[in-house]
């Protein structure tokens, strides 16, 4: 049952954010017997099978300023809600490949990038990957059945096989193909991106936060937006100032603080917490906070087929082509990519494809919705030091604090990779008779990574192999911000695995009074 802790209780660990990283961390710290206060900026979302309505209510709407290649009106589509962006996710649950932890060594010095190797290797995470897959009930793994085939996925898979691809499957989705963890079997309803109304999809909202509360060690405070992390004269983090639902500022004392506020708000919070001792912001002595922002490369292939597709039926991302995941420099770029089928509901169709387009030609395409098949491309995004989150010099948020300024320009490697993936994606659909194929790189992104990255050398990043900041011994980075590099796979399984690993480590540190 939900516990209550006093604001001046300085024995607790404070977790900022309740998404894939924060929710898992809170649950796992609770399981380890650690008292936790979880601060969540958003409220508990109401889910329904109406994706635009759910997006409208739960999207992160705080103002941001944008510079570079992303859509200035909607640079990122992430949630401000209990459960974070796991509410919207499509549950693709894939491990990074071993070489994805040795990016600098594998790719060499790509001019213009700030590539490093991770301070951990695949072998450090392997057992946690397996544990996270079991915990999330990933389909096709550890005895769980595959998700069933559906039209949109079959079209992608058959086309891929005709083109000679071999790593063609239904992938692994964290949706329950059998009842699991107190949640029901997936009914193949579609609407994954608006949140699963029956809880068959793993989300932090429906799996980890309930687990955290059931531990009897966790208090969740909703609509509590962290605005500053405080520290003492010794340089130890001491508490978090947050704004509560009534707009009042509160201060929660803490023994350890874990920041899992998404790759934009996590660095913003550290920058907002500047002080006399940390004039550039917390953990930013090396000037690394907010830099190396990676979004993953997202693309879309839309194909008009000779007959009806019913692409809205079933799990959004059933159907995976993974041949492109490996690193093959002969293709003319570093890193890899994959294709996953992507169902689209009619009400979001005009915006999901080209959020600003209109007119007679576009309408003729929209009209062909019944015969539309679609796949998403996800690809590795190279770190660039100047792709970064900073504090805006002029614009302030509702609390009078500088908003995040987002600067992102895609590297030549990114554009070469996406060009290759989209051209080959078109061929897949041509091979199954597509009459028209439309391709584009998305300028609205979902994954925000690398902005407080792990590094062996404190000069190269913000935190160490456990996510602990190089500068403050009891301040941790617990979300995708800690990624040293991105990969061809979506980040969620890795975020969850890192959170489990970090929780065990932190619990040990706290129990042994090392912190």
């Amino acid at each position, binding site marked *: 049952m939900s516990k209550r802790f006093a604001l001046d209780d300085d024995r607790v660990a404070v977790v900022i954010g309740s998404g894939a990283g924060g929710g898992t961390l809170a649950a796992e710290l609770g399981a380890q017997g650690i008292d936790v206060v979880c601060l969540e900026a958003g409220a508990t979302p109401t889910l*329904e*099978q*109406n994706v*635009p*309505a759910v*997006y*409208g*209510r739960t*999207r992160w*709407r705080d*103002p*941001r*300023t944008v510079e570079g290649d992303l859509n*200035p*009106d*909607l640079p990122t589509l992430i949630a401000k809600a209990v459960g974070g962006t796991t509410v919207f996710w499509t549950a693709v649950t894939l491990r990074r490949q071993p070489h994805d932890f040795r990016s600098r060594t594998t790719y060499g010095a790509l001019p213009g990038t700030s590539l490093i190797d991770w301070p951990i290797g695949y072998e450090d995470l392997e057992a946690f990957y397996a544990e996270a897959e079991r915990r999330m009930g990933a389909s096709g793994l550890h005895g769980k059945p595959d998700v*069933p*085939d*559906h*039209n949109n996925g*079959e*079209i992608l898979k*058959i086309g891929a096989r005709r083109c000679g691809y071999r790593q063609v499957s239904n992938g692994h989705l964290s949706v329950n193909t059998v009842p699991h963890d107190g949640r029901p*079997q*997936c*009914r*193949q*309803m*579609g*609407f994954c991106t608006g949140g699963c*109304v*029956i809880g068959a999809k793993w989300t932090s909202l429906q799996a980890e936060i309930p687990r955290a509360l059931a531990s009897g060690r966790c208090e969740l405070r909703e609509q509590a937006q962290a605005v500053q992390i405080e520290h003492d004269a010794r340089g130890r983090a001491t508490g978090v100032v947050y704004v509560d639902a009534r707009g009042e500022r509160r201060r929660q004392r803490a023994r350890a603080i874990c920041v899992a506020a998404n790759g934009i708000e996590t660095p913003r919070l550290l920058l907002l917490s500047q002080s006399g001792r940390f004039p550039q912001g917390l953990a930013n002595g090396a000037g690394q906070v907010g830099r190396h922002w990676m979004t993953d490369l997202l693309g879309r292939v839309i194909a008009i*087929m*000779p*007959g*009806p*597709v*019913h692409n*809205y*039926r*079933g799990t959004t991302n059933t159907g995976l082509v993974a041949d492109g995941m490996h690193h093959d420099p002969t293709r003319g770029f570093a890193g890899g990519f994959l294709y996953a089928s992507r169902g689209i*509901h*009619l*009400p979001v*169709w*005009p*915006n999901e494809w080209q*959020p*600003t387009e*209109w*007119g*007679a030609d576009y*309408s003729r395409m*929209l*009209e062909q*919705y*019944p015969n539309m098949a679609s796949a998403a491309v996800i690809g590795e995004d190279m770190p660039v030091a100047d792709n970064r989150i900073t504090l805006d010099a002029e614009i302030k948020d509702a609390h009078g604090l500088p908003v995040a300024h987002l600067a992102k320009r895609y590297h030549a490697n990114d554009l070469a990779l996406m060009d290759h993936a989209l051209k080959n994606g078109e061929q897949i659909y041509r091979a*199954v*008779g597509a009459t028209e194929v439309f391709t584009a790189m998305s300028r609205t992104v979902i994954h925000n990574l690398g902005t407080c990255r792990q590094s062996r050398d404190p000069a190269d990043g913000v935190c160490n192999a456990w996510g602990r900041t190089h500068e403050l011994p009891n301040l941790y980075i617990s979300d995708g911000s800690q990624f040293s590099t991105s990969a061809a796979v979506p980040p969620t399984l890795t975020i969850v695995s890192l959170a489990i690993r970090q929780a065990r480590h932190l619990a040990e540190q706290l129990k042994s009074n090392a912190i």
Partner: protein
Amino acid sequence: MKHADFDFSPRRRRLLAGSVAAAVGAALPPGRAVAIPAVPPSRTASLVALTRTLFPLAVFGETLHATAAAQIAERCAAEPALDALLERSLAALPAGWRDAPPAAREAMLRKADPAFVKLLRQSAVGALFGAPDTWPHFGYPGPSLPFGGYLDSKLVDLPWLKEAT
């Protein structure tokens, strides 16, 4: 910074349906209060012509475009800056544009203030593609929860694709 207005929950749709009825002068059930701004008929007609220029799909009839027009008018009534943008942008359109052929109207709108086009588009997408009445024309059934999802039905039915089972 403005974001797309994606809100077309059922409750809001009902309110809008009322607004449209008032905007196009249809009879309302007695005693029904409809809090909408007075929209001059010429402005409504212009907005309808504009949303039709954005999305000239045959399945979207006059009533749906009027819904979109009413939604735009409602937003502008609530935000003076948007209202000024709308007024300014409508006034800048050439005389007689509403009777111009579709291609000419599209060319005209491509030269208009992008902020104006964005305002029109945001409301038009929600009102047109979010309208359950038109979903059957797209073969889209809407929510699947009422019938329990597709798990027990045939999820692969692609008669035009021989390899599909």
